[in-house]
Structures are given as structure tokens and as C-alpha cells.
């Protein structure tokens, strides 16, 4: 029982160790995900294989962060890739195969670009991969910073203090683009991964 509980916790966002921000579930902070929750890449003609498929702005995140302890609330936002425990742990989870030749796609195949109007995201608007290529690999959107950046400047600063998409939309909202260029060496089939977006307060 303990093991199961631990396992579930291990698959979710890291637990915060501070209590400076309001909870997004029972408290007054809010974390919204808009857009499709299933991103389907279907490669069914050669042009798609050659040039890849890009979905722009398929996911939108909106944040409203309220603080409890004035001057102390700080947060980070990360993406975590998961393959449902498939092994080897660097591969997508196969759902069905259509052919016998080729290799299973790796987790670093998918490219993700995060951007907003003020460029607060890390590598704003630049496609990145989960370069460690392993289950539960993490990419930062707003990194774990030592300083607390308050909203307002709209100059690319990684805003991580209290604020809201209602008043500072371009600093508390994020658009996510997805791109896959499969090449010609992969085994035909249907594969799946999950991307978690974790909002966690930090000390």
C-alpha cells in the first residue's frame, strides 16, 4: 500500500516545501489548460513525413497566482514527458504496430515550443526536445529562480511572482506548439506519450 502511494506521488508534480502561495485547487490561485487534451499527429502521406507536422498554439495555459505570505510567493512551471512506464524508458509507448521494420520513436522526437507575448518563457518561442530522452524528463517553462520577478516589465524576464492573466495576460499565459518530424526510420504504428504541465511554488 505504501509502495503504491509512493509510486503515484512519484508520477505527479513535485511537492512544494513552502506555503507562501494560495492553492490552485482549494485556494484562490488558478491554473487553466485550454485547447485539445489529445494532440493527434497522423502521418499518412509522404509530404507529412518529409516536412513534419506542427500544431501551433494547441495548448494554452493561464495562471492566476495569489500569495499568502506577502513578498514570499514564488513559483515555477515545468513540462514532464511520460511514456506510461514503457520499457525501454526512452521510447514512446506503442499502442499498435502496422509493420515490422523500423525502430520505435524516442521520447526526444517531439519538439515543444512555449511562448507568450512578453517572452517570459524559457527559450520563448524556440522548439526544444526532451533532450535527456528518458521517461519523466523535464523541461522548464519558468525555471526555479533564486530571485522573485514581479509582473509588469514585459521584457522577457521570467515572471515568477504573484499575478494574474486577468491583469497581465502576456506574462501569465503560455501558448504551446508541438512539432514532430519523424523521418523515415521509424516502425509504422500508433504511439502515445503524455506531457504534464506542473505548476509548483518554490522557496
Amino acid at each position, binding site marked *: 500500500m505504501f509502495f503504491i502511494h509512493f509510486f503515484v506521488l512519484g508520477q505527479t508534480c513535485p511537492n512544494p516545501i513552502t506555503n507562501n502561495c494560495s492553492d490552485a*485547487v482549494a485556494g484562490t490561485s488558478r491554473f487553466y489548460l485550454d485547447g485539445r487534451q*489529445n494532440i493527434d499527429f497522423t*502521418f499518412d502521406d509522404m509530404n507529412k513525413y518529409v516536412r513534419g507536422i506542427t500544431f501551433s498554439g494547441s495548448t494554452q495555459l493561464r495562471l492566476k497566482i495569489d500569495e499568502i505570505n506577502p513578498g514570499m510567493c514564488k513559483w515555477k512551471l515545468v513540462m514532464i514527458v511520460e511514456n506510461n512506464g514503457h520499457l525501454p524508458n526512452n521510447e514512446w509507448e506503442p499502442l499498435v504496430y*502496422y*509493420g515490422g521494420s523500423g525502430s520505435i*520513436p524516442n521520447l526526444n522526437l517531439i519538439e515543444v515550443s512555449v511562448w507568450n507575448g512578453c517572452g517570459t518563457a524559457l527559450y520563448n518561442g524556440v522548439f526544444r526536445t526532451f533532450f535527456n530522452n528518458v521517461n519523466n524528463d523535464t523541461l522548464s517553462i519558468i525555471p526555479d529562480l533564486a530571485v522573485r520577478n514581479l509582473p509588469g516589465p514585459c521584457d522577457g524576464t521570467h515572471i515568477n511572482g504573484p499575478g494574474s492573466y486577468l491583469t497581465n495576460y502576456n506574462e501569465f499565459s503560455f501558448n504551446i506548439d508541438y512539432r514532430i518530424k519523424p523521418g523515415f526510420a521509424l516502425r509504422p504504428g500508433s504511439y502515445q506519450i503524455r506531457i504534464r504541465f506542473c505548476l509548483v511554488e518554490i522557496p
Partner: protein
Amino acid sequence: MKKLGLILGIGALSTSLSYAQLVDEKNVTVTMDLQPVLQLNMTTPDQIAFVFDEIREYYGGILKYGATILKVSSSVSWDLYAVGHSQNGTFWDQQMAYSTGGGPNSKNTLPLSLLELHQYPANPRTNGLSGTWLDYSTPFAPANAVVPGQNSVYYTAGNPYVGPAATEKYIAGAAGFIGGGGDAVDGGSFLTAGSLGSNYYYVLDYRILPGLPAIFPAAGTNAGAPEDLVTLFGANSYAQPGVYTMNVKYVLMEDQ
């Protein structure tokens, strides 16, 4: 009772602390459907006509250089072969005879192997092939020194969509599935791999060499056994004048 109150108080406090912590997550599921795609683009006339109406054409044959260009795009490993086919088993279909028969030794059963092919570039993946010739890359032999079967098209009276045996010619790839990439061309496209000279772009030449008398001396099996009309039907045989047709299929198939 005091202990119970203390425990309840701690419980209430911990619940309060838990709600005060900011942690939340949202998920998206990404599904990728990789469907096998094999595309063969062929540039060729609808019909390639060989009209033998001069004696020198019987002696020297007629060549059609670059008559067919094959361009491949595939998301999976693949093989490519040519197969001669007709309604008349392993012989050309005679559409019309130009004389009443041409005499007792004239034959209207012309072997499909009289059609010769030449490909460029050569088959890049020949592991597992065991025929005398692995592909059609050998230049046409001179008309006065033919090598039966060297460039003869593979043919079958059976299902043309079953890949040839390992003893037959492939334009690219080889029979069966060995793995390791030696018996098939990897997935790719002429769009990105380049055109002439890449593994995804082939130029085909055709030749028919009747000879005089018209016995088609270059016809043969891939083992080198002659299939000229004299070998097939006996001395003094020759082709009956007329119109003949056959079909060449180019088949692109996944190597698996």
C-alpha cells in the same frame, strides 16, 4: 479527551497547510500515428512502342534510353522490382498477325524474356540475392555478342505481386527479410536524398533485339539459359510478323 482535541487540532492545521500550498498539474496526451506510406512516381509513356520496319533494326535492335524514370518515397524499408506479365502466360500477347502465318516455322509465342532492361544506378542492397545477375545494371551486350538472360526482364505467369525469388533480379532490395538493412533500401525520399545517383531514383532503358532471323537471341532466364525461339521451338523457328504486347509492372513493396 485533551489528546483527542490535540490530534484533531493538528489534523486541522495540516489540512490548512496543505490547501495553502501551490501545486497543480494539467495533462495533454500526444498520439502519433505513423502509417506506412510507399509512393512510386513513374515518368514514362503510356506505351513504349518498338516498331521493326527496317532490316538494321532487326540486326541491331531498338533501344529506348531513359524511357522510364522511377522515383521512390517511402516511410518504411522497401524493395523494388520489375515483372513482365501478359494474358498469355510467359509469352507476349499477339494482337494481330501480319501474314497468314509466315510459314510452318513462324511462331507467335514470343517469350517475355526477350524484353531487356538496363537500370541506373545499380541495386544498392543485394544481400541474399543469388542469381547470375542481381539487377539490371549490366550494360546491354553488343548485338553480335549477346549474353542470354543478362538483361532479360523477370517474368511470371503467376501472381506478379509476389516478390521474385532470390535467384531473380531486383531493381532495389532483395527477396525476403533478412534485417540489418542489407536486403532492403531504408525509408527515404528522392525529395530529400537527391535525384539521379541516389537510392530513390532510377532510370530504365529498354531494348528488344530480334536478330535475323528474328529469334531474339538475348532472351534467357536469370540463370543464363537461352530462351530464343530456336531453343524453345526447334531449328528454323522465327517470330511471326504481327503486333505483340506485354505489360511491365514496377512493384514497390515493404520489406518485411
